[in-house]
């Protein structure tokens, strides 16, 4: 389903970036990082417009429920669609799907929402580790495995 999942900290620095796919070369991994990085712009825009009372009418998916952590599609490129999710502590999750893959092109919003919610749960589990310092990069192999699974599971 997803080709890349990123966890981004409060200060917009990446805490975890995991990608899967046939193209696991460093080149494509980098290109995914660019995608995630620029997604932050759209994400922040979404957050600020959600915070201000007059939600911009041009937002493609207006958020009726402010408590909804799922931000929907942030933006898309020829090849990818980028979805966002933000926790109450401003930890951002970014999920990138590939429009070219059969599973990625057909994805429904609800599926992405579920996946991101599950990611949130995984993240919460990972940072419950008392040896993990909040704000540090997540190096847990278990988390990595679970996230990779999450990405693949929905394929």
């Amino acid at each position, binding site marked *: 389903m997803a080709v890349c999942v990123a966890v981004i900290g409060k*200060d*917009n*620095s*990446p805490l975890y970036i995991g990608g899967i796919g046939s193209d696991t070369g*460093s080149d494509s*991994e*980098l290109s995914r*990082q*660019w995608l995630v*990085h*620029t997604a*932050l*712009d*759209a994400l*922040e*825009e979404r957050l600020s417009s959600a915070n201000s009372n007059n939600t*911009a*009418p*041009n937002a*493609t998916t207006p958020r009726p429920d402010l408590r909804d952590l799922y931000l929907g599609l942030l*933006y*898309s*490129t*020829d090849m990818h669609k980028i979805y966002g999710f933000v926790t109450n502590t401003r930890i951002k999750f970014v999920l990138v799907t590939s*429009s*070219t893959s*059969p599973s990625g*092109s*057909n994805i429904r919003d609800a599926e992405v929402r579920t996946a991101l919610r599950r990611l949130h749960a995984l993240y919460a589990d990972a940072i419950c580790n008392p040896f993990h*310092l*909040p*704000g540090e990069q997540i190096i847990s192999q278990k988390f990595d495995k679970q996230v990779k699974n999450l990405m693949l599971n929905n394929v």
Partner: protein
Amino acid sequence: MKGENSPANREGMTNKPIITCAGDWNLFCTLEAPLVAAIPQDSCEWRRSYGRPPKSVYLEASFIKFNKDKVQTELNLLKRPIFHIYWTDCVDIEYYKTTLREDVEAWFKQLERNGITDWMVVLVETYDIRKTNKLLPRTTVLDKIKGDFGIKQTEERFLSVINPIKSEARSAESWRALVAKVRHFILVAYNKALIKFEEHMREQREKRNDPEWDFCKYFILQEQLAFVLEMLGLYEEALVQYDELDALFSQFVLNTNVTESPKWLETFMQPVTAWQAVRLTVLVPQNLRELIIKKKASILDFRSYLFQRQSAMLLLMFKPWEIASRCLSTVHNTIVELNLLGANAVEGASACWAQLACAETLRACERLASSNNAIEMCTATQAPLLHNAKDKLHELGKLCGLLPGSPDPTSEQLHLVVMLSAGMGDSEPNNQHPTPTDRLKEALCSKTSFQQYYLELAELAMGTYKHIGRLRFARLIGRDLAAFYSELGETGKAVVFLMDALRSYEEQGWWDLAAQTRLELVAAAKKMNDVDRYTKLSATIACTAELEILVRNFYYEEMMKSIRMDFKGKNVTVLTELNECFKLVSATLVPSDRGIYITDHKVQCCLVVESLFPKDVRCNRAAISIEPCTEDRTDKKTPVKSYKTDLNVNGSVSTQTNLQRKTSDVSTESNVSNVISSIRLDDLKPKNPLLNPLKITSKLLYKEDKTLQKATLEYHNPKVPIKRSDSNKYRKPSATTRNSYNICLVRDDVVLKPGTNEVTLEYIADKCGTFKVGQVSLLIESTLEYLSNALIGTKVGFEVHTQGVNVYLNKVEPKKDLVAGLEHAMELVVTSGSSPIKENTSILLKTSSGLLIRTVDGDCPMTRELTIPVPPSKPFETTTVPLRLFASVQPKREKSIEHTVWLNCPWWDTATEVPLHFSPPMVVSWRLLTSNARKFVQVTLKSTVAHLVQFALSDPSLQCDGNNTVSDLNPKNVKDMIVASDGTTASFMWELLKDPLVKGAPMKATFAVKYRPLKTDEPPRTFSCPFDIQDYTTLFVIRTQLEPTKGSDFCRASQVCCLQLTVQRVNETEHTSLMYEVLADPTTWAVLGRTAGVITMETNCTEGQAVTLDVMPLVAGFLPLPTVRLSKYIAANTKDPKKDISAHPRLEPFSPGQVYHAGKAKQVHVLPSAPKEHLEPTV
């Protein structure tokens, strides 16, 4: 939605509701024009079924003649007449009955056959004044018709109207009613028709999985609904229809991935031959629609058509931003679909189409936004469009070989350009501005125009992104631009973009991206032949942990190569940020052995630094700059006083205690200035508040019956002070300036291994004061100088003290006091401080008068000034110079003698004062003894020195002035007398031999004696003591005699005796009036009567005056006689008040030698008192 935008104003709008007219066609022709004009003039409320909200819509109508043969099926919404009207102006009932009725009946039958229920019968009357005057018209033709054809539900469908052509004024009301009715019935008809149509449509849609089902047909079918809704002004609902179709289509295409594709989809798999720009107008692009109907449309044609229609609806709704945002998703979807369907197309066709779509959308947005206040809303969506347009253009440029740096286009590429241009078709005529199609065609023609267009788009996209605050996107474009410029040869511009991007990535911790950008930068630097930057970046890349080790090693070698090749022989260094290649772990000042840092000694700092290089690097010089603390007092010299030798307190103060005291000073001072000696860089980071332990307390709550109610864990959230978030994180880092390294901790030539290195830096302190550690500098391979900014602002530092030279004047035997008149062994102790003592240094000693000094060696004389050369010595060495010191004895008998030695050292500006306390060796006391007129002088010598000293005395002498002589009464043949401080005294006695005839004037006498300390072989010194003897001549002699009372032979206790007192003048004196006082011991004597009295001595009489007193001894035994004191009696002088202030008489004592009391030592034997019986009566 009113006025100019009403459907009537739009060209090509062909979907007006069709109304047929039957009956009198000629009559209708006269009414058609006003009717067509009147219908759209007002809105009408459209009540809709299925609970859909009522809408107010504007209607139009087109009228055709009723054709009984050509009644369309209800499945075509557009071509089918929706409403039918029968017109007649028959007023004659007879005529109606005969002819008209048949006609009407036929019309009704016709309608009935087709199931049409939407009709109306209009009777046009001519205004007749007579008729209206009648109260009730009997029956009109209308009534007749109504009666014949109408039922209750359809009664309102029969209407009479006054012909407005013939009598305009009267007709207005009926005319208005007619128009309203027409509108109303049209809508009713539509409602019915739409319900039916929707049902049909739904039916069709359900069949979509049939192999025979055709999307194109269905599309045209559903589009009718959209047209009708559009015509009714319900653009939103029309858009919904298109969106439904869009979704349906997308789903089909996407499903081809999973399942077998239906047959109709093959239509869209046909080769793409045209990729014209979408035209965003409200017009229906009929050519494309034709293609769809004919099943000739390619996927691009279909998508173009759909997007244009969707945009048309949005244009009508004035939502250009929505078009913009839909454009991108459409473009993305279309390209995905194109790939999925595998439709054949020239390479670049899709890019062309996408680029044009984006550019057209932008143009449309601009056009609309400028007339509406929607610029702001558009800008936000324009940026991604521009971005996409730019990307697509780049793609095209790449295909056609137009990118800078690429070789000239091949013939195939040129051919491709032609193909692509052809596929774009012609741009719309009559345009002043070049259309996107024109621009794209132009851009594909030449490299320069391509470049111009590309840069325009990129700059515009970047600017727009920046404007809407999407800085990351802007930087992404910046990177693209950098690559473009770099290819163009304008590497300088590229570097600017890359640096900007690099900084932002670094700031936010995107290390991979930063590493990638650095690789791009280093390539740019190489291109620019910017050696400094290239070397620096190579070093940084070599230190980037995110990159693979091979890459790092390569750039490490590049760096070394660059240093070897380009910097060889050059004496320049390149300043770099330390953090890029090294990590400071800690800096610790090594405490000095002495506890404090002192001048001319090493200050050492242990710097722990982590090298990120993949291999060893040579650090030619590691240094930490040192800054003096300005706010500190510069003069750290300990006050002079502490150098003073305090000889009273147990001799000298030792160096050790002196230092200790100073260290304690240091510690207090350093507390004041808050200088710390060690720092770990981790400590500088603000502490993560999340790591603070939670203050959790557990509580057990009990119920009244002492059973546990609940156990709680409570966490009291303490009010954590809100701190300003680290805003400098996003601040542009200021370029590190190189501190002054005039004074610095330094270490030369270290090899820094990958990983943690510990380097000890040294600094020889030459000034005292407080210093702060500043900047760290590592000079790598003689070329790269890494500068930190880490230690600035912290308070790592040290204090340097000068340990000056200490000079003490010490006693050799510290326990013994200094004694004047004896030579003492002293020593001058010179302790060199932190600095060595140089050659030819000397100390000048000056003494106060009476104190002499000499060096031990040789027989140099004692002087009051002495220059002592100090031998050169290393730091913290002690030199002792022995000295002899002699303080002359002063004749005055003071307890101690104060002397001072001034030490003039070259190190100090002022002379150091050493106070010395000398005790006199002996103390002289003398007494004048009298025996009648003979006088004796007794001299007693006593030593008061605290420690034991013994002197042997010889040759005592007493010299008197004038003509007085003394006779020596001292034994001549004895050995030296000894006087010692253990209490041994020596006494000498001389008799004053005086001529009794000479009046005893005051006399000066000098006692002298030679002394030498016992058990030494020092030559004896002379001790002399002058004194004055005054009033030594005996003037009066007092004699006392005790006689028992008459009649008794002995003195008895408690019996009154007679004391005979005689005063005799023996020498001349002016004192004639004398007073005597009997001073009896009250325990032994009781004086009865007067104890004192005044007597007057005759001047020329040598006879004594006798006084008798009654005294009584109180005890028995040998009792000394009562003493008598004789004083000068000066009577009250009333005559001369000047002399005596007091009018009372007064007494003046005589000097001890003037009155000789002959009976002073006499004793009388007093018997015990008489028996008791004799005594009792007397008591």
